């Protein structure tokens, strides 16, 4: 049991980054659930791989390229949706898969081997550095402030769209929704490094969905989701450390397990 307490610095970094992201994920994930945008979040996060590839190709930081590609994917979706090219679920699958596939090809073209590809897909939380921590902390703080600004209006919008538009005006609600998409893209850009392209939506959705079982207000839901997310990170890191499992998948499985327990507890 002693090795449990003699954490290496990289474990501390992993826990810090994971917990901070869980807190932000609780707020963004709740809004994603309220607006039934889970698949939308999933589709644009798959495109993060393309962002990583572009970062490698141009030799610039991938945070920025992921953010831009995620935004691009989101805008592409809205454009195709407005043009009624196909139903939204169809469009989302196409955008997710095409972006992921293109990303895979370009990552290889950018000179990254399959080992690094796995890292991109499933995250590499144990390689989080001190400077990554500062980036995560700064982005988290900015995102929490942004969320706080748009929170009440976005709640009303999700709860009753027409009332929100009547009270705030259509244009203002469009702007707030755009800000929310920006926040989602920024979150994905930061979180992808840590939990990977394929698992980032799990961090957004699962704790929030579990918290919904026990919440009577949106704020209670966010608080509980943050707690559940943080627990999943700590539990997942611990499990992967003890059993030598991959870390990000361990976090997601822990989170899903907590969700299952939540369901049982709720329907006892």
């Amino acid at each position, binding site marked *: 049991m002693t090795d449990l307490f003699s954490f290496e610095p990289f474990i501390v970094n992993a826990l810090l980054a994971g917990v901070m992201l869980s807190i932000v994920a609780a707020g963004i994930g709740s809004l994603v*659930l*309220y607006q*039934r945008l889970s698949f939308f979040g999933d589709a644009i996060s798959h495109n993060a791989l393309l962002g990583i590839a572009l970062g490698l190709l141009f030799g610039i930081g991938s945070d920025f390229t992921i953010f831009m590609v995620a935004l691009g994917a989101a805008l592409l979706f809205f454009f195709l949706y407005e043009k009624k090219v196909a139903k939204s679920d169809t469009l989302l699958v196409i955008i997710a898969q095409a972006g992921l596939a293109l990303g895979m090809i370009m990552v290889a073209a950018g000179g990254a081997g399959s080992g690094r590809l796995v890292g991109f897909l499933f995250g590499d939380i144990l390689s989080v550095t001190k400077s990554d921590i500062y980036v995560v902390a700064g982005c988290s703080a900015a995102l929490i402030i942004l969320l706080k600004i748009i929170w*009440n209006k976005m*709640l*009303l919008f*999700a*709860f*009753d769209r*027409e*009332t929100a*538009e*009547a*009270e705030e*005006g*259509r244009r203002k609600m469009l702007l707030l929704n755009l800000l929310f998409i920006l926040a989602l893209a920024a979150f994905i850009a930061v979180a992808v490094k840590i939990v990977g392209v394929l698992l980032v939506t799990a961090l957004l959705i699962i704790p929030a969905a579990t918290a*919904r079982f026990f*919440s*009577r*207000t*949106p704020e*209670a*839901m966010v608080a509980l989701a943050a707690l559940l997310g943080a627990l999943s990170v700590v539990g997942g890191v611990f499990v992967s450390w003890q059993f030598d499992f991959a870390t990000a998948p361990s976090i997601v499985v822990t989170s899903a397990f907590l969700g299952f327990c939540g369901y049982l507890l709720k329907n006892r």
Partner: protein
Amino acid sequence: MKTMPKDTLIAVENMGKRFGEKVVLKDISFSIAKGEIVTILGPNGAGKSTLLKVLAGVVPPSVGEVVRAEGLKIGYLSQGSGRNDAVPMTVKRLLLLSGNKSESDMQKALKLLKIEGLINEDFHTLSGGQVQRALLCRCILRGPDLLILDEPTLNLDFEGRIDFYRLLARIKKIYGCAILIVSHDLHLVMSKSDKVLCLNHHICCQGKPESIQKHPSYAKLFPYAAAKGEQDVGVYMHHHNHKHPLCEGGGK
């Protein structure tokens, strides 16, 4: 921007609304003054909800514009009964969605609506009538100049409807707001209205309730109610002997 008489809250002139090819509203002109109660009557699919959405600013008009008094505050209660239950919500939290309200203001509004016992209830478990009251409570707490209500009595029984109209009269008295309401309860609502509008894609007739009941268009639109009068409260039928060039492809 057109200028309006000082007392006018909102006005439209020759406003029209199309969805694709489908013309839903045409040549709509009317205005609502401070403190007025205006009732809209009309058969299903007449464009009543669309008109309310245009006035509330939820839907843009295709023709013409909506002119609002400077800083006009609108409370809009849409026809849909359920609200998104993915969002956890108590009645109290709902009231606070419109900004910070003092406990005493909240209690006053809740009492007026006779739902003070529901403040800590889960919104999504309320009955149809309670939902309407909770949403209306939120609307009046925002201190609107104009309340726009789309068939708020749809899910209420007869007693409930009478109760609701009494409530509206009290809200108007206490908060001083104008009210625009869509209703099928012809006679219940008429007597309390300052103005009645009969709508079937265009305005068939508008005016004071007494004069409306004598208007030939009204008799055409509501033959059953017009013929049998008061004892027919609650019975409502639309007979298709009232042809509109607009909605029936040019009459005959």
